[in-house]
């Protein structure tokens, strides 16, 4: 960013000038405030790592930690490997090869993104459990009794892989389709066959993108609560939840959260590292793209492979959800359903507005006051996407409870006021999803160059009129995208909602959790299918954006 040339500052556009002059650091203060929203919960949680309580720790070390750490380790390893294998192979064949149905699959393979992982999870269990239709049929028809248990480590890994591979697929496919084919051609002109070229050139070149996608998937894995809860697979998120609700121990929850956040920060650091590598690894631009024509056997195998993944990741879960929904729709589609829906809607709308305006403020501040302070503030404010909901719930609750107690001690209020309100929940949502809103807004903000401002000023438009007539119209598309993404994410959000909702504020996701906890798969299907339908919106946005 450049400083404004002197002539522009001196120009008789009093509005902009005095505006800036009167509040020299207003933008900076705004940004620091937004960043502190994220920083406070993180610090609170980190602090409890520094102030360990011996009793809790000895209990944790003896009974929980070894299992939690080994469970988390295997889960991260398994899902990491799974999403990379699935995501990269699908990205490669759809980006570079030609086979029947390729155009269709290249966007359809993103559809599993619309289904929350916990929904795929309960569908899988409902289908494959001992009393599920598949085992029952197998017993009746063939007398098969031996099945690998679905509620196992392998089961969780498989389900999460199917739900999360689109992150790797999406990012890697972009990398392949911009450079994959050409990289292969160079390799071919130097005497390498396409297969060898894939491993020696295309794959190494796409490594930062693959790593970036995998890191996103791993963050989701570490943050996941719903899936592991359904599988009874104990990880840090479920342990935090249990400490909070079953043991009523805020301390134990904080201690666990502080360990989890260390893992998360490691992954976050790795992800930020891969991002900087993506910047300079841009190779070549779009060239003539001739696709590899596979032999007919290979081509049909590719079709079969894509179809199998799509079936397992999307078609089967959605079909099963629809079947279950049909079973119970007469009974469950009632006032209570509308209550859940209504709560979800209000929370999601509020959060979308909140996250949209805070991102706008943050991004605008960076534009008005470019510099180190703003860069650090934006970086901190947008790490929330990596923070698990369970951690945020703890981190947002502790300072609010403290504030409540202070207010009571000072005699301003009689009973806790803030901790039972929507404030904790909305703040936690805001922190978690600020980055989701920030990235489209910020990238659009970068397109409003200094020249746009100067051109407007030379035409006599400045100050608030500049914002209203130039900046906001230019940003409106990205604001809408941002709000939509946050809306959908809040709809699907489970742990923050479960842990911090005021009494009576049950949402669709809470309903899914309660019904699956009771093993009533078909009654969880109605809220779940509603979430899937809403989740389709950003996927459609994504495919439209990509096809442009």
């Amino acid at each position: 960013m450049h400083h404004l040339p002197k002539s522009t500052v001196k120009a008789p556009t009093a509005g902009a000038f005095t505006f800036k002059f009167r509040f020299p650091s207003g933008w900076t203060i705004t940004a620091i405030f937004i960043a502190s929203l994220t920083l406070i919960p993180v610090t609170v949680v980190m602090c409890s790592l520094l102030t360990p309580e011996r009793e809790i720790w000895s209990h944790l070390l003896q009974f929980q930690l070894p299992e939690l750490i080994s469970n988390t380790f295997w889960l991260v390893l398994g899902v990491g490997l799974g999403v990379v294998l699935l995501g990269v192979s699908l990205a490669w064949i759809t980006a570079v090869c030609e086979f029947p149905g390729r155009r269709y699959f290249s966007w359809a393979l993103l559809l599993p993104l619309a289904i929350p992982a916990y929904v795929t999870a309960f569908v899988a269990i409902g289908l494959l459990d001992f009393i599920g239709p598949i085992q029952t049929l197998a017993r009746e028809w063939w007398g098969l009794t031996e099945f690998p248990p679905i509620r196992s480590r392998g089961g969780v890994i498989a389900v999460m892989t199917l739900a999360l591979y689109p992150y790797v697929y999406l990012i890697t496919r972009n990398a392949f389709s911009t450079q994959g084919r050409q990289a292969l051609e160079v390799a071919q002109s130097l005497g390498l066959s396409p297969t060898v070229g894939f491993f020696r050139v295309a794959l190494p070149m796409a490594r930062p993108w693959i790593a970036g996608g995998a890191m996103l998937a791993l963050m989701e894995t570490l943050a996941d609560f719903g899936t592991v809860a359904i599988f009874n697979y104990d990880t840090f998120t479920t342990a935090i939840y249990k400490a909070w609700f079953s043991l009523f121990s805020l301390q134990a929850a904080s201690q666990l959260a502080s360990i989890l956040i260390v893992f998360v920060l490691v992954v976050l650091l790795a992800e930020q590292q891969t991002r900087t590598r993506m910047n300079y690894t841009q190779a070549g631009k779009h060239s003539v793209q001739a696709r590899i024509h596979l032999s007919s056997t290979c081509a049909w195998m590719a079709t079969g492979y894509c179809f199998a993944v799509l079936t397992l990741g999307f078609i089967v879960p959605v079909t099963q959800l629809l079947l279950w929904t049909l079973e119970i729709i007469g009974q469950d589609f009632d006032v209570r359903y509308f209550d859940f829906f209504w709560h979800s809607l209000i929370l999601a709308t509020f959060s979308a507005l909140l996250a949209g305006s805070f991102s706008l403020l943050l991004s605008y501040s960076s534009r008005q006051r470019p510099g180190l302070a703003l860069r650090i503030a934006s970086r901190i404010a947008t790490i929330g996407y990596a923070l698990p909901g369970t951690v945020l719930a703890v981190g947002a609750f502790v300072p609010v409870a403290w504030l409540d107690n202070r207010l009571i001690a000072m005699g301003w209020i009689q009973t806790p006021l803030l901790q039972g309100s929507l404030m904790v929940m909305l703040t936690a949502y805001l922190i978690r999803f600020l980055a989701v809103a920030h990235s489209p807004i910020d990238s659009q903000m970068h397109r409003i160059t200094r020249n746009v401002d100067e051109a407007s000023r030379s035409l006599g438009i400045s100050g608030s009129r500049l914002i209203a007539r130039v900046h906001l119209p230019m940003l409106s598309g990205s604001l809408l995208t941002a709000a939509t993404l946050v809306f959908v994410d809040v709809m699907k959000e489970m742990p923050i909602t479960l842990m911090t909702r005021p009494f009576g504020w049950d949402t669709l996701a809470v309903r899914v959790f309660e019904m699956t906890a009771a093993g009533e798969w078909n009654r969880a299907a109605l809220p779940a299918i509603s979430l899937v339908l809403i989740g389709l919106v950003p996927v459609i946005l994504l495919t439209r954006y990509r096809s442009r």
Partner: protein
Amino acid sequence: MLLELKHVSQSYNSRTVLRNLSFALDAGEIGCLLGPSGCGKTTVLRAIAGFEPITNGEIILNGQQVSSPGFTMPAEKRRIGMVFQDYALFPHLNVTANVGFGLHGQPRTQRNKRVDELLHTVGLEGSGLAYPHELSGGQQQRVALARALAPCPNLLLMDEPFSNLDVDLRERLSLEVRDILKQQGTTAIVVTHDQHEAFAMGDVIGVMQNGEIQQWDKAYNLYHVPANRFVADFVGQGVFLPGKVLNTNQVEIELGLLYCEIPGNRTLAERKGIKCKNTTVEVLLRPDDIVHDDASPLLALVEHKAFRGADILYTLRLPSGNRVLSLVPSHHVHAIGEQIGIRLEVDHVITFPVDS
């Protein structure tokens, strides 16, 4: 003949991209394909490289058929080097690894020797450990050339190799690359839309339009003896003036009589449709065909002028209203609106039948 294209056609989704294309290149020769964008020149390159199948004709490399309808020898088997427009260097490899990439299967010492040799040739000694993003555009171009030359390819193909560089560098590098290719004895085809580049690089140049080669010739002939109106228009500057055929080697235009008796060149009589007397034709006049001469009785009005350093390009209006271009040494300064004397000095009379 190292490379021969015989009646090559290619169509894609029922759209014809290449039509009945034939040309040949001797070992060590540099050929250029010149044409406006979308004329199919890159497709020719990709067909020769083996990235595109052909639907008709054949391509013969070193006496071996490499492409025919239904058969395309894989690109990696052809030993054809390629330099891409955006260089397509591997961003994850340093310069040494990029250049040595095609030398797989050779012992390390031999490979290192060849890489050093090439880095020396392209003037990049000492940059071996740099990564592509640390190099300037010109340096990246040299790395791409070195990488393509490393495995001693049968043939080197270059697709708009200098289009990403600024004008100064473009001219210098095109001459430099020509020297390198000649020194290595490499046969090459360069695709470009810039005629100066084609003139600087090519021993022979093919002018292409609509997927067809309009003329396959030396630069001199393209300029002075263009085969058709498209070539005359596309290569160099010039205007067409109406003329009347008096007999087989005399044409009259408003500036006077033109004689065409240069042996070894095509005479008017050879040209179709203008054998008969009194036919009207169009005569190509290059800016160097019109010479400024203060003593000449023929006067023309200065309408525009463009200063070019060594000379000035004047646009002149004749009494008839037709315009001609004239290249005049730059110390002959005349104002717009002035009448100046001109005379004809046409070495090659080129005529085309009038479009009807």
